[in-house]
């Protein structure tokens, strides 16, 4: 398990330090006097050589470091360059290649912390020299540390069974990995199951989605938990312990045949249907939607007569399979997985928050998802676009950016609404021949085939109005949309029969809770934070936790699928390697100094410390494998028994000392 790198090179005395200064093209050298920095650094105790390079991270720069280590028998290395976040691991590997332990390498950030933040060359050079001095002081005291290899459980968790989660689950399972798929709703499918057609090809959403749902449900390596949520997470990359809580369906899954007899007899029939976005009603015991997978009804205990008055058991009586179980309870299972894919999707903006659009106040004002359901052949109107009174609308306005790009609600662009709006406008033109007005701010049609899709909508006679629909009022049976036609430079009032609001995609309301549970972060707009927008777009700060789909930010189906695949690849990468390499900068508890108070045990967020009896004393010990190097115990320990390897007091003090001591150029010759 423990794998020490080249321990025989470990020396306590007579260290030879190599200092490498990176120009980063002109990023650093334009603001820092590199010659002065080299001269200043070379005077420090223990420094054997100082070298400069235009790009240390480049192949040539790395070669230069390795050659210098060998030729000068260096035992310690300081790299003064960019942020360690960017290249620390690069230089660890470089020095490892020349036989040094990574923990004998220290970086000084003279780019982000120096060159990029001041135009004052003299001050920048002085600060760079101080940072390099601190790094030299610290690296002298650093000890080679082991790199730990932890075992990995060859199983993955996917949270959310929308199109991104389904893709990730299938990719993982098809590669031979066991998958646990947890879905909050009673059926797989997510928002895509509500969609009628998908832009820009206008193929039927269900036709591509439903077979996938079935394949996931029947896959021998995938275990599906619907009506379920992840409620606890512990452990670490390679070995997470996940608690899954399942709400009762009040149906015995093993018996139910999905015949629907129970639904037919249910006397409660006036519940607004969630799946149809309130445009239709459903029964107390109901199918989430006709193609639901698993194909099994679910009973709504909040509206069921059996639960409210205890005098109804019509569904149980009607069930030919005796599958109704009113006594079913919440259940909980615990699973162990090596990696997690988070695909929890998005919420839809509630336009009632922007009262100027009259949503919920005037008739025939729909959200995009409601219009989607209206267009769907198995939706509330069997696919017919009609007003509340049954009339076919003669004119329809589609308003972009409702709740998006609006500092009152969401600053972000929801990315898919422009194309969804075009899809709606085409559906409306083709089905009803209505006059369609599309009020847009910017038409964002950047994905493949989308600009052509825009052209098509134009050619079908949709009237595009450059200008945001700003207000909707109701007068004499007409909805009046107020806007400016920017091309005309005129205020316009457009009377229509129906208004469709292209509402924003928002982060899930419980995203902060989920983020906390998984140890990942939410970005400014509230969507989950990827580790690096460009280079690690599906990874998170929590090793082993990956993101897929709209939980990371608004995106369309192709991008969600791509990200689902990418997240699966990230998880597979980890699982296929069979082990996780982690830093051994774990906490250390000096038994002789431990008072056994247990404060560290309660403060440790990873449950990595426990109290044990040893030689008649109660002392705390660290379980290395669980420690995530947060340092809480070091701060908490009243006796100073806790230290964190790689961050010991003497190492940190040496660095601070180096920062504070006056530079050689102003020190008196005597010292």
């Amino acid at each position, binding site marked *: 398990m423990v794998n020490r790198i080249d321990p025989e090179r470990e020396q306590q005395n007579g260290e030879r330090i190599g200092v490498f200064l990176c120009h980063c093209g002109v990023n650093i050298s334009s603001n820092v006097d590199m010659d002065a920095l080299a001269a200043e650094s070379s005077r420090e105790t223990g420094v054997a050589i100082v070298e400069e390079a235009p790009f240390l991270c480049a192949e040539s720069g790395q070669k230069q470091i390795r050659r210098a280590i060998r030729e000068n028998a260096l035992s310690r290395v300081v790299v003064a360059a960019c942020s360690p976040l960017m290249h620390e691991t690069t230089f660890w590997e470089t020095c490892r290649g020349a036989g040094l332990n990574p923990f004998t390498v220290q970086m000084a950030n003279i780019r982000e912390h120096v060159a990029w933040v001041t135009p004052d060359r003299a001050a920048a050079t002085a600060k760079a020299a101080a940072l390099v001095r601190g790094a030299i002081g610290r690296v002298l005291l650093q000890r080679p540390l082991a790199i730990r290899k932890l075992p990995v459980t060859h199983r993955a968790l996917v949270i959310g069974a929308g199109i991104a989660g389904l893709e990730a689950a299938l990719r993982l399972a098809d590669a031979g990995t066991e998958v646990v798929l947890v879905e909050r709703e009673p059926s797989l499918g997510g928002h895509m199951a509500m969609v009628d057609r998908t832009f820009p090809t206008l193929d039927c959403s269900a036709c591509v989605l439903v077979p996938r749902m079935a394949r996931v449900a029947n896959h021998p390596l995938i275990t599906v938990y619907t009506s379920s949520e992840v409620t606890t997470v512990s452990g670490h990359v390679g070995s997470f312990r996940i608690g899954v809580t399942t709400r009762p369906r009040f149906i015995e899954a093993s018996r139910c045949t999905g015949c629907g007899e129970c639904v037919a007899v249910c006397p409660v029939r006036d519940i607004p249907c969630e799946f149809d976005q309130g445009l239709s009603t459903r029964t107390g015991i109901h199918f989430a939607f006709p193609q639901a997978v698993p194909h099994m009804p679910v009973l709504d205990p909040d509206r069921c007569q059996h639960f409210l008055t205890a005098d109804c058991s019509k569904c149980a009586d009607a069930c030919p399979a005796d599958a109704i179980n009113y006594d079913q309870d919440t259940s909980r299972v615990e699973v162990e997985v090596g990696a997690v894919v988070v695909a929890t999707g998005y919420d839809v903006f509630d336009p009632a928050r922007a009262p100027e659009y009259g949503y919920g106040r005037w008739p025939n004002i729909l959200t995009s998802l409601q219009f989607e359901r209206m267009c769907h052949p198995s939706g509330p109107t069997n696919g017919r676009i009609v007003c509340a009174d049954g009339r076919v609308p003669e004119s329809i306005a589609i308003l972009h950016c409702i709740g998006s790009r609006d500092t009152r609600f969401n600053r972000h662009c929801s990315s898919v609404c422009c194309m969804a709006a075009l899809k709606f406008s085409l559906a409306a033109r083709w089905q009803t021949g209505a006059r369609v007005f599309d009020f847009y701010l910017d038409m964002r049609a950047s994905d493949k085939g989308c600009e052509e899709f825009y052209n098509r909508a*134009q050619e079908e*006679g949709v*009237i595009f109005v450059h200008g945001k629909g700003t207000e909707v009022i109701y007068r004499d049976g007409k909805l009046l949309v107020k806007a400016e036609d*920017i091309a005309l*430079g005129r*205020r*316009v*009032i*457009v009377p229509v029969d129906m208004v469709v609001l292209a509402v924003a995609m928002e982060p899930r309301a419980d995203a902060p809770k989920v983020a906390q549970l998984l140890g990942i972060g939410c970005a400014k707009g509230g969507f989950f934070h990827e580790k690096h927008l460009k280079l690690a777009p599906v990874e998170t700060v929590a090793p082993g936790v990956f993101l897929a789909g709209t939980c990371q930010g608004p995106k369309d189906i192709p991008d969600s699928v791509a990200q689902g695949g990418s997240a699966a690849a990230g998880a597979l990468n980890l699982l296929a390697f069979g082990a996780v390499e982690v830093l051994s900068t774990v906490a250390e508890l000096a038994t002789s100094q431990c008072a056994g108070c247990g404060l560290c045990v309660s403060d440790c967020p990873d449950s990595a410390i426990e109290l044990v009896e040893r030689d008649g004393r109660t002392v705390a010990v660290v379980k290395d494998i669980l420690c995530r190097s947060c340092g809480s115990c070091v701060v908490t320990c009243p006796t100073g028994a806790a230290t964190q390897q790689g961050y010991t007091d003497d190492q940190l003090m040496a660095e601070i000392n180096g920062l504070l001591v006056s530079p050689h150029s102003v020190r008196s010759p005597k010292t």
Partner: protein
Amino acid sequence: MSKADGSRPLYWSDQEIDLSFARRVGPAAVSLQSCIQCGSCTAACPTANRTAISPQRLGRLIRLGLKDEIFASGSFWQCTSCAACALYCPRGIPFLDIVIDLKRYARSLGFEPPEEVRLLCEAVRLHRNISGEPNEERLRWSTNLPQPLADLNCVRGVDVVYFVGCIAAFYPRAYGIAQCFGRLLSHSGLRFTTLAGNEWCCGYPLFNAGLDDEIGPLLENNLTRLRELGATTLVTTCPTCFYTWAVLYPRYAALPAGLRIMHSSQLLSELVDAGKLCPGPLERVVTYHDPCDLGRKSGEFQAPRDLLCRVPGLELREMANSRINSLCCGGGGDVKLLDLDTSLDVALRRVDQALDVGADTVVSTCQQCKRAMVSAVQWMRKPLKVQDIVELLWESVADEVEW
């Protein structure tokens, strides 16, 4: 308060907007539904800064059928027909076609064109030429040459017919173009004739004024007369006549099989290549102005440049806008007739470009471009020579010749 008043919001009821308007204007106007209101047409239009309604806005008004505002402005008459709008439109909307269709549609609704345009069209209808003079005097340009040209008057069996065009025939400032071209052909030994008094206006002025349904008799006369002579090549010095013969006529009638329609620059280029004409040296710095009708609208950019490059000692420099991106001279459409200031404003910009490259001569292949740029040069009082290509070539050839 009029409907065009901008202070109150427009109410888009069925009475106010008229979505079938564009279809009534013509098939080209229907393509305005693809407009993304980027304003490229406005940015490209040489006269947009002097019209009440910009091309982009005009397009939007047509799309929505706000006809009162369109017809009240009359901005579409201030078009030089340079087609830069259509060139730069990222959606490929043929905006010039729309403007011409709009003129036709306006007339069909009883909106009269500006008086100058009406008189011009009247002259063509009555006299078969734009100046309204007796048409049989079409050879006036040839009367004061030191040595008369042979065969000018409708000679049968001559291969090449020179279609002189109304301006070179009737406007003294353009006589030189016909004179130089005739002498060049004669000097090269090529036999040619003209339709003389049987030549009728090509019809472009009517087409451009939205009266394309009246082109028929003109087209028919010109074709019949050409057939009578049995010529195989028709050559013009006017790029608009060239465009009309080469591009517009085939839309209305079948031209004689094998008929070559050439512009003077193309024919002269061939004659120089064949060694029939030998340009003498001219120590000049020349820039070439592409006429819209020959370049952008007919696709001929190279022949005039090749010809200029055959003149020894001549240095050819390109202006900021050249070839397909050429800038209008201001002389196109009927703008020079309607609004001299606007025409001059455009011409000044073009002449500035010629001065910017240090040219001592700006050469064009169009009598109308020459007239517009001469006006600008005179107004600016700059020592810049404006010539048609045939004049420059004659200058280069004539030094070697005794006339």
